């Protein structure tokens, strides 16, 4: 087992031109598909969790094909932390805004109608969209940062 690890460390498996080119071509489409899954959750299977995981998997794929520094050029650690906080805050903030908005109930999006009159039913549809975006942001950045932290022993440098 140790021998195999040493061999793979010397050969740098994954640093192949074919894999890197394929990942370079694939990653934008994966991210576009993740956005589609989040945004189209009203009409088809999908939603925040699934789309967020697809978006996070695109960064994991970048890390595996290149190395962690390369992936961190596209999504820095600070931006990642800000996005995970922003995603969780978007959800809980929307829910709280419903509660403090003219006597509405917690998580009752139709109360936001008094803030911006679009109609209570349209607000229920739009509120679901807002919280799906929040879930997507949080799941994307947290799944990517879990992989990065566990893969790089907490140092966030070279990675695997």
């Amino acid at each position, binding site marked *: 087992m140790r021998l195999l690890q040493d061999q793979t460390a010397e050969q740098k498996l994954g640093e192949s031109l074919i894999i890197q080119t394929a990942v370079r071509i694939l990653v934008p489409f994966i991210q576009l598909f993740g956005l589609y899954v989040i945004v189209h959750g*009203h009409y088809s299977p999908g939603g925040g969790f699934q789309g967020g995981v697809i978006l996070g998997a695109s960064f994991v794929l970048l890390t595996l094909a290149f190395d962690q520094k390369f992936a961190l050029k596209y999504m820095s650690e600070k931006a990642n932390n800000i996005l*995970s906080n922003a995603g969780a805050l978007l959800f809980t903030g929307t829910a709280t805004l419903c509660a403090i908005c003219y006597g509405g109930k917690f*998580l009752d999006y139709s109360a936001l109608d008094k803030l911006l009159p679009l109609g209570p039913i349209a607000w229920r549809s739009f509120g*679901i969209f807002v919280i799906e975006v929040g*879930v997507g942001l949080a799941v994307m950045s947290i799944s990517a940062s*879990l992989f990065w932290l566990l893969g790089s022993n907490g140092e966030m440098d070279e990675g695997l």
Partner: protein
Amino acid sequence: MKLLALFATLMTGAILLYGTMDFPAFGDPQSPAATHLATYFTENAVRETHVPNLVTAVLGDYRGYDTMFETVVIYCAGLAVVSVLRKKKPSVPENKS
């Protein structure tokens, strides 16, 4: 010891499979799960929320607490891993070119 573990696993699996025999048939409209709230959702969800996908309507609106605390659980997992694992490098001024 391995044989004992295999026996315990097989027995648990057999008991669980025996338990599934009491389940209602797949897609049974008279099953308890399909008679109380599911009819309300299928009849009223599109009219009340304007979301054609009932799963999204239930997850995001009727069961919003569940989804919110799922997100909070994931957020707590990320927070815990960052606070336990993240190491700051020892600050060496020469290395920072």
